[in-house]
């Protein structure tokens, strides 16, 4: 993978510097990506659990999701 780059713009002088991520930035970037993947998986799991519960209730009622939404208006 190409090393991500960082740009630093000084709002007073207008000086602009572009460089590769340093070791600390690269470590933080990779850790953040791993955490985001974990969070996304946990969120998907939670949503699937809720969807399953919803379907169980709809099955008991004998309604489709569209029919239930129509009832709610």
């Amino acid at each position: 993978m190409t090393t991500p780059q960082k740009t630093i713009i000084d709002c007073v002088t207008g000086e602009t510097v572009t460089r590769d991520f340093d070791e600390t930035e690269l470590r933080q970037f990779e850790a953040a990506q791993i955490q985001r993947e974990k969070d996304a998986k946990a969120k998907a799991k939670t949503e699937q659990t809720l969807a399953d519960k919803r379907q169980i209730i709809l099955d008991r009622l004998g309604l489709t999701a569209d029919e239930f939404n129509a009832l709610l208006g």
Partner: protein
Amino acid sequence: MANTQTTVPIFVAAQVLEANQLNQSAATGVPVFATTVTRDAGFGGAGEKPLAEGQLCYLESTNVVQYYDGAAWATVGPAAPAAAGALTYISGGSLSTTSTTFTNAFSATYDNYLVTVNALNCSAGFPVVLLTLGAATANYAYSYNAANQFANFAFQAGSAAAASIELVQLQNTTSQSLTMRFLSPFLADRTTIFSEGLAYTASQWAQTAGAHNVATSFTSFTLASSTAATLSGTVRIYGFANS
């Protein structure tokens, strides 16, 4: 005002110089006018000095010093002061890499700031634009809400202890945009951020309310991609006048 005049007199040989004429023309040095209308009427009339290149004046209406360049009046300075509550452009720059830091963006001059990003885009995928302040990589809290009018889609996310603040999720296309309002970033106080973004993803319209929860004075902020994709866009930073 005590120095305001309506004419710049000129004298002819043997004319008697009255005290009020001396007070009006010599005492002020640079003639002072209430407005540009009285300035223009103050030259070239009967008994008045013809307007010529190099003439100076001061305008009370805008608090500026002007010079006549032979064809028109130009302002020496200061630039017309901003009206109370107005926005003042501070600086800006372009996003072109994965992460862009704007240093010396915040100062004691303004408590609150507006940042706009036009033509926001990414090089690939669906990265989220992340915001951090100074060198802080912790203590951010935020709520992120997004909606898509076509799919009746609603998405909510947030964190009480994050390493950055999520602003908007992008797609590799054109004409996406973002605005942010920063409250008290330079003051040694909690910094709060309110943002709105428009993208062409499932989370098309995104709103974020967030804060850095430790009283800290920041002078810089960073906009970064959550993936290795590069961001592009035009960033402009404005300060809200304090009074």
